[in-house]
């Protein structure tokens, strides 16, 4: 299998979203025309043109996947870590933090 193409199509295009998209959901278009191989001239790619026939279909709104709130707790951690995770200086003095999905790996 081609390493280059597979790397992008499977690992990037086919990868599930792990972070919420920063932009609102867009309307996608479905090509019905044949794929045209662009011509390359003078170090510039041709500007993509819209296919002749476009069938607009509204993308399915991103299903709000509400993860179950984590109840796992990490104990015996330093006050600095507690402060970093909670983001509040008042975290100091605590020795337990709740484990969340967005917690950096190195803390776990």
């Amino acid at each position, binding site marked *: 299998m*081609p*390493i*280059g*193409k597979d*790397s*992008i*199509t499977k*690992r*990037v*295009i086919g*990868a599930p979203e*792990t*972070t919420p998209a*920063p*932009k609102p959901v*867009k309307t996608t278009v479905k090509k019905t025309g044949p794929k045209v*191989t*662009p011509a*390359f001239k003078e*170090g*510039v*790619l*041709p*500007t*993509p043109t819209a296919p002749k026939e476009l069938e607009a279909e509204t993308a399915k709104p991103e299903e709000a996947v509400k993860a179950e709130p984590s109840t796992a707790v990490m104990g015996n951690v330093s006050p*600095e870590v507690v402060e*970093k995770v909670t983001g509040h200086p008042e975290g100091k003095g605590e020795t337990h933090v709740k484990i969340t999905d*967005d917690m*950096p*790996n190195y803390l776990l």
Partner: protein
Amino acid sequence: MTTVICFANNKGGSGKSTTCANVGYSMAAEGKKVLLIDGDMQMNLTLSFFDDEASLEMAKNGENLYTAVTKQRDLAAFIKHTEYEGLDIIPSSTLMSGIEFELFTMWQRELILRQGLKAVKESGKYDYILIDAPPTLGCWVMNILCASDFLIIPVEASPWGLFGLANMFEFCEKVKRISPDLTILGVAVTKVNDRKNYFKQTIDVLSELEQEKNIRLFRTYIRIDSTIEKSQDESKPVMAYKKVSRAAQEYMALAKEVMEYAHR
């Protein structure tokens, strides 16, 4: 308002430093105030503007990024003027090879560079700050991405180039947990031989990526050109070395694309 753009890809030899140097020079030639930051221990960005003797002297005497980061100083004190109007640089050092170990024990270690750059950015002295990243995916590159508003990924049209690009996207997803505002400005294809079939395949794959994931493929691509190596040998950006060269024109076109898209 100052815009911070970094050039990163964990694939070595993808054209990060050359693109950073020449896009930066082209922006300055267009009248913008530009600060370049050399984040790579190979010092190639520094060598684009200073000869080897001057570069190694700055690497040794502490007037470099390594000192600024390890001592957590304001980066403004480490800025050097180049011989070109509107173009400054913070040089690197070979000591940067040990930066991962230096960062390890620091508090909020992913944000050291962002903090050091804060005053320079807020001063508004520069229109653009361009950061050249090393070909790694560690805490230091995370620092560079966290300090940046935009990321440009130079990629070579090769199978291993695309494999490295996939690694880069996966890394970006992790960085966005810490720095959610980081935006991938686009993928710039470099070292192109447009007679090769693989170049066309690469463009097909990257066009699909653009359509499916909304990740921009810059319309300008940089073709192989011996003028680039010759300019590097003279410690000059290609446009300063030979303004009428094909490479100089392509970098200028790329810089104009970057300036068109890189704003919040």
